[in-house]
């Protein structure tokens, strides 16, 4: 079976670059999976989890939005941020959430600023739910 060469890059570093069987990504209009020989495809990614499936194993990456480009069995995923337990702790995430919540109170609702701050808040809430799930 054909493999997909998948690489995930952020402005800071290359997160992953490997041969996989399937890529599952959170598109803005719903989660989708890509198998090898899929047609060329570009999508905007939402806050969510990218899953790379290969040889009975899977890698998960929590991302804060980005783009996915697929062509000729090569998937390039450009992310703004990728959260792992190495680069963010639970305390930091909680701190960010409270900081953003206080900022949100200052902004007026229904402005572009409000929406972008609200999106930030959603992102960190997602991180805390997924990454630190079950940690009490």
């Amino acid at each position, binding site marked *: 079976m054909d493999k997909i060469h998948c690489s995930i890059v952020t*402005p800071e570093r290359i997160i992953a670059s490997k041969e996989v069987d399937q890529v599952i990504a959170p598109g803005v209009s719903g989660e989708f999976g890509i198998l090898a020989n899929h047609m*060329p495809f*570009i999508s905007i990614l939402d806050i969510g989890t990218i899953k790379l499936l290969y040889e009975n194993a899977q890698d998960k990456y929590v991302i804060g939005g980005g*783009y996915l480009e697929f062509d000729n069995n090569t998937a390039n995923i450009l992310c703004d941020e990728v959260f792992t337990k190495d680069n963010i702790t639970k305390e930091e995430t909680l701190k960010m959430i409270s900081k953003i919540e206080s900022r949100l109170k200052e902004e007026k609702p229904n402005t572009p600023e409000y929406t972008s701050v609200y999106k930030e808040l959603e992102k960190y809430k997602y991180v805390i739910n997924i990454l630190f799930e079950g940690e009490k």
Partner: protein
Amino acid sequence: MPSSRDIKRKINSIAKTQQITKAMKMVAAAKLRKVQHTAMQFRPYIGKFEEIIKYLSEYTPPQDNKFLFLRDVKAAEIIVVASDKGLCGGFNHNIIKETENLVSNLSSKNISVSITVVGKKVYDYFHFKGIQIKHFYTGILKNEAHFVDAKKIMNVAIKDFLEEKTDEVYIVYNKFVNMLIQRPIVKKVLPISFEEENGQKQKYEKFTFEPSKEIVLEEMLLKYVYMSLYDSFLESLAGEYAARMLAMEAATKNAQDMIKKLTLFYNKARQAAITKELIEITTSIEAMK
């Protein structure tokens, strides 16, 4: 001939200067390591991004998106990225030269030019020359570059571009090639266009977009414009520290050479004084005989 005390004083003062240049070199080296790392890590990201944008722009007809749309160029904006501080060799000078070339080039085509400057040194120069600066930012490139700053500056330029006050936007910055070389680069960011390359034209005909082509284009192109400026920030910052490190190393070496020469001079003067004294003593003894 200066007295030996004067020379001694001079040696001391040069030794102190050398200490400072040496310390500055160390500081620049330490900072360089950090920013170089960031700049290098960013390259794969912007590279991949550029690839996608290139394909997209090749397939999309320019009138489909306001960022791709080519107009008759009447006004252009130049964003000059350089450093706040001096003592870094030809770093700022190269940028100034490149900018002036670009300005005279555009002016000869009857294009009015407005300049936005990031970095105090270049601003000082243009201010001295009496050239009008549209916007001036300082204190942004300090130790590290922030994406928010790039976004803020670019937003102003984008606004003017969309309101058709400017028809082209350029960035002039130093690209970090290696420790010894920083190359001044002129990059056209708006409208987004690439050199024609044959053979790949058909590629994106077959692409499907999600959620829709317009939204994808809109988002990615905007992001790309921000990223271009951020990229130039990173490169410029790494270049600045590399240039400063090199300049300070040269200064330290020059100070060393100077101290060596002056020490030799000092010793000669000292010896001359001793000889003179000896001669005086021997002649007076001779005279007393």
